[in-house]
């Protein structure tokens, strides 16, 4: 927040790197000086490390059951929730308790980062690719093409997104469940079950999330298209593709990245919600959403089972929101304080 208004900017620092600072370096510098964004970034790096090294960090696997220890809790949980004391099975081996099948909650939360982060990183890639290609074609060619393409986007805006994604998930789940061996659908279904059901979630999110991106890209392309340097490039005989990729895209990248980062919490939430209502990942793959759903059913007796995955989900969304806000301030200092 304080990057430009901070009067404490060291003068020596400015003169040392006077001219050679590119736009991106400048943005990076502003980003690092933003405490919220920095914290968000560090949390995200930690989450990525957790996801990569889940096998080492987690004391158990996510699917190891021990029915003798169903709903077991360690002592400190009974101190936190005294109502548990009379009936809970005490077992110190589970850091924050076990679920109703005796699976370690902590390990499942650790493995759950994989699902949330996969959605957080692959969802944006899908929607970015579709949205940017669509939006730039629309903006670049303009006229009737633009008109038709934007009407299509308008129609998609009228779709109640969440309901549509639920319908889409039902379609994927049943169509690709048991098709004949050797068909394309079969391999897609196999691939999806390899990913624990994540593939279709990402396709669903990608298919429903690109409209905003397409609109923004189109607007940006329209405004950049008339600039002198595009005219200059065209006058020396650059092809449409070259103008698009070398001259227009790099200049509109900033707002696209900002929008995409700010929409990541939405993607994470969509996956969690789908898993919450049972249309997300396949059990026993752990997702924070399905853990919250299981936990809410035992809310009265074992509040710890819903609380911890809920905190993990909220913390992750916080981190991405902080980073997104910081990125916006860093990449578009003009917009700071003037836009939502």
């Amino acid at each position: 927040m304080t990057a430009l208004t901070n009067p404490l900017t060291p003068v020596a620092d400015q003169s040392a790197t006077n001219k050679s600072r590119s736009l991106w370096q400048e943005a990076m510098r502003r980003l690092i000086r933003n405490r919220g964004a920095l914290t968000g970034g560090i949390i995200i790096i930690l989450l990525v490390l957790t996801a990569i090294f889940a096998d080492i960090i987690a004391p158990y696997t996510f699917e190891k059951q021990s029915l003798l220890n169903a709903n077991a809790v360690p002592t400190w949980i009974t101190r936190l929730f005294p109502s548990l004391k009379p009936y809970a099975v005490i077992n110190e081996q589970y850091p924050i308790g076990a679920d109703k099948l005796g699976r370690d909650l902590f390990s499942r939360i650790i493995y759950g980062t994989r699902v949330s982060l996969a959605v957080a990183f692959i969802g944006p890639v899908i929607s970015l690719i579709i949205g940017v290609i669509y939006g730039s074609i629309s903006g670049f060619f303009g006229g009737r093409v633009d008109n038709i393409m934007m009407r299509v986007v308008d129609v998609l805006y009228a779709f109640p997104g969440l309901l549509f994604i639920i319908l889409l998930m039902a379609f994927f789940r049943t169509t690709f469940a048991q098709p004949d061996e050797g068909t394309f659908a079969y391999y897609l279904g196999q691939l999806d079950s390899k990913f624990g059901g994540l593939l279709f979630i990402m396709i669903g999110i990608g298919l429903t999330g690109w409209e905003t991106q397409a609109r923004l890209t189109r607007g940006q392309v329209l405004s950049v298209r008339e600039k002198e340097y595009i005219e200059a490039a065209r006058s020396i005989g650059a092809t449409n593709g070259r103008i698009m990729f070398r001259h227009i895209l790099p200049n509109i990248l900033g707002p696209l990245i900002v929008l995409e980062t700010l929409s990541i919490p939405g993607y994470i939430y969509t996956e969690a919600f789908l898993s919450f209502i049972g249309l997300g990942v396949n059990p026993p793959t752990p997702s924070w959403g399905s853990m919250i759903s299981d936990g809410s059913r035992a809310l009265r007796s074992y509040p710890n089972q819903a609380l911890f995955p809920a905190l993990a989900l909220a913390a992750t969304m916080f981190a991405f929101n902080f980073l997104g806000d910081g990125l916006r301030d860093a990449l578009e200092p003009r917009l700071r304080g003037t836009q939502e």
Partner: protein
Amino acid sequence: MTNYILRRLLYMLVVLFVVAGITFILMHAVPGGPFDREKKLPPEIQANKEKYYHLDDPLYVQFFSYLSRVTIPRITTIAPTLRTDDDYLVNLKMGDYWLKWMNFGPSYASRNRTVNDIFREQLPVSFQLGMIALTIAVVIGMPLGIMSALNHNRWPDYVGMGVAIFGVSVPTIVLGPILIWVFGVLLQWLPPTGWGAKPPFVLGLFPSSLTWDYFKYAVLPAFVLGFGSSAVIARLTRASMLQVIREDYIRTARAKGLREQMVIMRHALKNALIPVVTIVGPLFAGLVTGTFVTELVFGIPGLGKYFVTSISNRDYPVIMGTILLYAVFLVLSNLLVDIIYATLDPRIRYN
């Protein structure tokens, strides 16, 4: 202006037609039918049931007969009956004739109910939840945004924006269970689930009594739903207020010696709230689909309750009806916002 609204309404019909088409195709693309059970029915019974609901017609016939039943009003001499295929939302008596309009069809899953029954009993609940949540969102969001803007870069600003970022980061499925646990289970101040009003509703939408017995059910879900939107309102109000406060006419107002309170209320706020109106469209959309999530978390008997089960039941009319209803809400609210925006800001002209 009238021309513009008419054109938009026409365009809206096209959009809804496409939404209906895509939903229809997708829903029939899901394998299985409404009468597939674990225990297989004898083929004759299966065929008979499908014939009864006209599921043996070609798909395009089914689609267009559905559309005509929903959109084209009928005029008959037959008074409305209790049959499930004769349930219209609008029944007008004109002399000897009855004008019947909007038949969303029967529900396959529950034999004696129609989609219109679901609309009559569940939609008002969703509507009430959405309205209370919208009120909460505005009541929390606007003062928060104004407070932040007036104390720009001081601690109230940081507090306000902290609350705002909390609002967008803590989703319903996180905040919902936590609040249910604290207020419903631990303190037992509020009922953890359910809704305080039952049909019949006043004017078809509103609860018959507005007592604490009604509101105690609404407090938690409406807060959870409204809180996220209040964050969006707060951020936008703040940004817009910050911009307005630097305008020349504010300086003029101050220079002529107006009290600060007057400057803020009369001059700044009025202009700052115009862009905020634009967000109400997307916000309303968010609330509409948000009610759906909130209803699932809090076990509220609204529209959302039937949607997920209707998909697994292949209850085609319920799926179509619910999606179309939500879509109508979305496009109508967008249109309404554009109109309000044009009347608030005379510089905007549509042609």
